[in-house]
């Protein structure tokens, strides 16, 4: 159990570093979803299944979708018509 927690925390911190420092915003949003997934594993480890479910559905799922939709709409999503890519 502690091994699972340790791995999840490592993944989570690694993904959080990516959220802050990776150059593309699309990659940062993807990394934020990974943070949420790792977090939801940690919640499960902490015997909080309700919270784990919510974090996976809301944190990783809905928030990720909202962020992606926003990037698409402001033209930071690669491939959007007038987009200038996802560089800041």
């Amino acid at each position, binding site marked *: 159990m502690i091994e699972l927690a340790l791995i999840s925390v490592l993944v989570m911190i690694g993904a959080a570093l990516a959220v802050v420092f990776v150059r593309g915003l699309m990659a940062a949003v993807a990394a934020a979803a990974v943070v949420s997934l790792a977090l939801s594993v940690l919640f499960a480890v902490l015997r909080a299944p309700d919270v784990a479910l919510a974090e996976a559905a809301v944190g990783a799922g809905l928030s990720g979708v909202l962020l992606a*939709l926003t*990037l698409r709409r402001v033209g930071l999503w690669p491939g959007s018509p007038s987009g200038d890519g996802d560089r800041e």
Partner: protein
Amino acid sequence: MTDAMLLAEALGDVLYTGAIGLILLGLYAMVVPRHLVRIVLGLLLVQSGVNLFLVAVGYRPEAAAPILLGGQAIGPVVDPLPQALVLTAIVIGVGVLALALALVVRVKDVHGTLDSREVAERMAAETGDSRLMPETAPGRGAAVPAREMLEDRS
């Protein structure tokens, strides 16, 4: 100290470190980068770190999840209260996130940039020294004559 206690302590260290790491990285992302989407992501990290800490506070070693299958308590359970609080906090967080993103979309619309410092400068120019920068409202677009600038916004 028993092995179980040592193990619990190690688990606590790992989780607290993770929570502090998320909070600090989130704060960094809110302070140093200037892109508004990055700042919003930083906010998410801070919230996640706080949520993790709150759930960790309610943990009790060798206790079951607070769901009484079969309809009765089998033994000690971890503290359900922080879990309820975090559940609430997660949902509040997604609401705030959605509004923040709606504003991001609109700011990009009207200011043409998502650099927080440029947005601040343009706002100061719009509201501050109205002699130099006539107010342009979205939709209306055109510069308004100076006479109208003294009209109210009430």
